[in-house]
């Protein structure tokens, strides 16, 4: 059966209905809100404005998060209390220990390398003739989905037997230097590192843009003064640029770390978590939605949340410091 636009009409109709209904409700709300009784006006006006957001958040985020925490103390069906069993499982099951090790690798490598690449590139292209084009090149992967990025890199890692022509860029390069073509995504622990490359590829642009703005914010008098004192490029970098962008650098590093902890799509698209490449977010999906182990899936989600908290605290502190510096 081929594609037919007629099959698509109900969807488009529902799209229009959905958007129109939303516009209608908001429009009505804004009309009504000024016409009510004067008594306790502030109260119910605020309720009108905030009501939709608060209701949705309570229903879709607050209650579910609490419920997930609660479910993590139950067995797979979510009915029998099992105490800390799921957490014991989380830290003793060999397969899950590999998942935790992989997640650690991701969180250590991806943020540092993405930020470093972004910083180096931002400095190198700063005030060059091609700056904006050069930046777009690095930045473009940010618009691409992790699924798309996963396919792009699977193609780079593609494997053909040694006697055939290689179609993957990486194996082509290896063969050109006289090596044997490898099945990159099957050999651990290298395969996890090659997946991490994909995230670095996506996130370096983010680091570059934010750091580039910070570099441009360094007062030019300081840079000039250092130049006049005879500082070379390296000295300039170490004693002027780096200290000035340090708070921003920390924020970027932590933001990417938080993203990295939750990485799911890349692993799912490229290996499906096989060959010892799974990470927490992928395992959580498998446990909760494929194996029906709600308790174990919930425990993984809670553990993920626990890992995010200290990072966010550091980030909030640094953010405040950046603001104070700018003020």
């Amino acid at each position, binding site marked *: 059966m081929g594609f037919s636009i007629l099959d698509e009409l*109900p969807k488009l109709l*529902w799209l229009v209905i959905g958007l129109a209904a939303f516009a209608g409700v908001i429009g009505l709300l804004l009309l009504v809100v000024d016409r009510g009784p004067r008594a306790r006006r502030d109260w119910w006006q605020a309720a009108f404005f905030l009501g939709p957001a608060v209701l949705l958040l309570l229903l879709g985020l607050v209650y*579910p998060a609490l419920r*997930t925490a609660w479910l993590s103390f139950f067995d797979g069906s979510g009915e029998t209390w099992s105490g800390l069993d799921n957490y014991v499982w989380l830290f003793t099951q060999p397969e899950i220990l590999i998942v935790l090790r992989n997640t650690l690798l991701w969180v250590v490598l991806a943020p540092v390398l993405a930020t470093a690449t972004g910083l180096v590139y931002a400095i190198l292209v700063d005030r060059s003739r091609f700056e904006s084009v050069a930046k777009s090149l690095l930045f*473009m992967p940010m*618009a*691409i*989905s992790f*699924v798309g990025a996963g396919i792009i890199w699977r193609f780079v890692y593609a494997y053909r037997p040694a006697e055939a022509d290689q179609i993957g860029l990486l194996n082509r390069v290896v063969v050109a230097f006289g090596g044997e073509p490898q099945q990159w995504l099957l050999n651990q622990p290298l395969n996890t590192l090659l997946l991490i490359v994909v995230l670095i590829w996506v996130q370096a642009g983010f680091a570059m843009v934010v750091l580039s703005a910070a570099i441009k914010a360094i007062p030019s008098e300081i840079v000039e003064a250092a130049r006049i004192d005879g500082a070379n490029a390296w000295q300039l970098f170490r004693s002027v640029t780096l200290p000035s962008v340090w708070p921003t650098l920390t924020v970027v590093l932590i933001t990417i770390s938080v993203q990295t902890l939750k990485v799911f799509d890349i692993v799912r698209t490229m290996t499906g978590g096989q060959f010892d490449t799974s990470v927490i977010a992928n395992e959580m999906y498998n446990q909760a939605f494929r194996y029906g182990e709600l308790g174990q899936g919930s425990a993984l989600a809670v553990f993920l949340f626990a890992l995010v908290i200290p990072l966010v605290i550091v980030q909030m502190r640094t953010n405040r410091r950046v603001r104070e510096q700018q003020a």
Partner: protein
Amino acid sequence: MSDPTPRPTSAAARVRRRLSGRVGSAVAIVIALLWTMPTFGLLISSFRPEQQIKTTGWWTFFTDPQVTLQNYADVLFGTSSQGQLASYFINSIVISLPSTVFVVGIAALAAYALAWMDFPGRDWLFLGIFALQIVPLQMALVPLLSIFSQGLVVGGVQVLPAWEFQGALEFTNVWVAHTIFGLPLGIFLLHNFISALPRSLFEAARVDGAGHGVIFRRVVTPLIVPALVSLGIFQFLWVWNDLLVALIFAGGNADVAPLTVRLAEMAGTRGNEWQRLTAGAFVSIVVPLLVFFSLQRYFVRGLLAGSVKG
């Protein structure tokens, strides 16, 4: 010499500077190549005939250029085993537009109230919503899915009925899920922007007898258009590129599943059908790239203004 200072530089320093300039440029070019080559290779491949893609590298295109649009025709409009991505493309649009509009609208209202309306508990509420930004959406998936499929029962009382949507109506689940997950960051970003508007603006409007509804519509909205666009781009790209939420709230149904879900599936089951994967990946990438390049200014501004969603 371009150095504005007249002080004499040693020959060694000059050599070193020139070298660091050369090395620097070389490093920048290498990085730029590494960052563009993979995408470029995929793009070239998507236009090569199947037989060629599968037997020779995409770089042979430069010595033996053969171009075809067959891959795109197959993957978009062919049989369902070939992908039939046109239908999923429409699903992606039907998912992304409302999920974006809903978040921008609801977040703007909430951010305005949090910034400029007086009511008890305002600061606590803001803090609470701010804190929600850090909750990974993995924490919400299982219970939210059960709310959709079984309704919400509190203490034996059915507070919400089950939503038993069929066919196209199932998009509603995805819209609601994406809207919820987008709200904390949306409210935070817009609050930053709206609370920075000058107080005199609101006082003048109030003196003229305008209520909150009128102020929001006539005064605030026109002023925060750039912020709304920034948030809109973020949310749109996020939703369009999302896999996890779509997989859970629409994954089982080909009528509503977006491109990402279909592509991930094809990468899993037909991982060596590169003629489809390359063209398919580009079908999914083209919209975000267009949005990104045409609205890059807003995108960068948004990045610099706030965090990134999780």
